[in-house]
């Protein structure tokens, strides 16, 4: 069997598991979600990313059945779910506030949903133990929620929502309170569960690195609207707007006006007298159209001498140096006062000489390193 890439969204014959059709949600006269259309496919690990208050939880709550859309349709497996109450939906949600039952022990919290399904006692006990083990809380099983720490509570909430192995699992910031190590472990556990059970995950996160690691697709939201829905690579490499480029990862944004050239090449004119910047662009620009070049710091090379040949090169001086892990980020100030970030990996530590403050340097990049954006 040939290894096909998992990309049901590219296949016109695939039916989506969830379909938001022109969904609007208003609270009074405040619009939380505006005319949103979105398909999510079975077995996806779908990440919702966006600033606080942009409507991520509201979308989850509409899927779980706690809020009804003001207008538009939400379909689950082709069925309009407007009339299905939350307890009849094959959907489980992990609440942002955890919503653990304070009067029950950790064990009983996790068993709660299984008991509602009248699972036989023995299977139930096995399942709860399995969940406790997964989130590493075996020794806390007999405690009440107020007797454990915040991160432990978060893990209980996660275990409780996973226990029923639902078709669709909604996780509202499931790992926010965990330390980096445990968070990464849990991310891999989640991906593993997803692989094994075929559950569809919709996950809200503030952590873009997490979205990039776990998600099959990422939706970047702003003020109740989807800005871009795409694979993590596409979102990172080919953002469709300055907003998305800026939201995901570190980026340099250079503003100017377009001057189309042959072969899909567009020159970006900055200020009067500044060297135009050369970029290959998928989208066409009209001459003089305002545009922005978005380029990631790691795509920019930095050197002491003038590079032999490069599509774009600029001279500046080092203003600031940040060292994170094995990466150096240089903030290079251009003659016009703007600052460009360039990043180099610290692999051959002895060979490559590092630069110091105020040192004049050259930065250079190819014409396919960045993307030119019209909004």
């Amino acid at each position: 069997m040939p290894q096909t890439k998992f990309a049901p969204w590219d296949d016109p014959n695939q039916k989506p598991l969830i379909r938001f059709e022109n969904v609007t949600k208003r609270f009074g006269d405040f619009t939380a979600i505006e005319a949103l259309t979105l398909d999510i496919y079975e077995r996806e690990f779908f990440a919702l990313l966006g600033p606080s208050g942009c409507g991520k939880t509201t979308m989850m709550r509409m899927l779980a059945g706690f809020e009804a859309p003001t207008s538009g349709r939400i379909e689950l497996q082709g069925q309009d779910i407007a009339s299905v109450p939350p307890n009849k939906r094959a959907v489980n949600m992990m609440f942002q506030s955890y919503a653990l039952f304070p009067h029950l022990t950790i064990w009983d919290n996790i068993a709660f949903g299984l008991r509602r399904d009248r699972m036989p006692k023995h299977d139930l006990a096995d399942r709860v133990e399995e969940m406790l083990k997964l989130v590493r809380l075996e020794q806390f099983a007999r405690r009440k929620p107020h007797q454990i720490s915040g991160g432990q509570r978060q893990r209980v909430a996660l275990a409780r929502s996973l226990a029923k192995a639902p078709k669709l699992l909604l996780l509202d910031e499931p790992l926010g309170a965990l330390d980096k190590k445990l968070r990464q472990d849990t991310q891999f556990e989640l991906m593993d569960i997803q692989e094994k059970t075929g559950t569809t995950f919709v996950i809200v996160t503030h952590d873009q690195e997490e979205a990039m690691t776990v998600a099959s697709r990422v939706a970047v939201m702003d003020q109740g609207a989807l800005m871009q829905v795409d694979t993590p690579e596409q979102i990172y490499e080919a953002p469709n707007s300055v907003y998305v480029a800026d939201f995901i990862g570190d980026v340099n944004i250079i503003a100017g006006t377009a001057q189309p050239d042959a072969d899909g090449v567009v020159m970006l004119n900055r200020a009067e007298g500044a060297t135009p910047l050369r970029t290959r662009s998928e989208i066409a620009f009209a001459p003089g159209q305002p545009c922005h070049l978005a380029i990631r710091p790691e795509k920019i090379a930095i050197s002491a001498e003038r590079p032999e040949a490069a599509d774009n090169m600029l001279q500046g001086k080092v203003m600031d140096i940040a060292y994170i892990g094995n990466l150096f980020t240089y903030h290079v100030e251009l003659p016009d006062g703007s600052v460009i970030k360039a990043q180099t990996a610290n692999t051959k530590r002895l060979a490559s000489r590092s630069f110091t403050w105020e040192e004049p340097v050259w930065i250079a990049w190819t014409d396919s390193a960045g993307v030119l954006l019209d909004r």
Partner: protein
Amino acid sequence: MRLSWFNVTSLTLGFAFLYLPMVILVIYSFNESKLVTVWAGFSTRWYGELFSNEAFLDAAWVTLKVAVVSSSFATVLGTMAAYVLVRGGRFMGRTLFSGMIYAPLVMPEVITGLSLLLLFIGIGLDRGVLTVVLAHTTFSMCYVSVVVSSRLMTFDRSLEEAALDLGCSPWDAFRLVTLPIIAPAVISGWLLAFTLSLDDLVIASFTTGPSATTLPIKIFSAVRLGVSPEINALSTIMIGLVTIGVLTASLATKRNALRQKKDAQAAARAA
């Protein structure tokens, strides 16, 4: 810290004002003499007479029955009303309803009693234990509803949502999640309704018949013929019961709070 002269005086005056009448009553309940105002030595004679007085014992039994039954009904109805008013979402006339549920709190008891009396006569219900129970249920359920709804207002809605999400029907969510958590408020509502019923005189006298004399009515009519030391003994017993009840309740609350604090500290240490 030492209290100043002024504070000592005001504290003494305040407490004397509150408790002196009761202290005198308790002391005179152990009086040998039949004359309530003349001290003739210590004796428990009136307690003995009290317990052989059929009329008082009957009245006590009626009062207890009425209090238990009416406070239980009031708790169920009051909790239901509170739940709908806090959780029912916005329905037509909700503000009107929540205003109306509090009205009996401020209504003079005479009016409540009178209107109930007219109602019972109107529908031809014989006055007795049943009518007193109904009347007490009516006026004490709004107290329960006030207590319970103030608890429900601070209740985290997402707990119920989580229960629904995990497959509970709305009734199961209430029974398995909401009720156990708000139980302390429901119990205090019951206790409140119980005490209200126990010492109600006005409404009971409007709605009762000859077959059902409650203790307050009995005491009141006995006192009109002159205060007998038996009444003092009875009152002392009631003061004793109430004191024990209040002390137990507050001790339990205190112990609970202490345990919670210890648990929280243990959790902080474990984390």
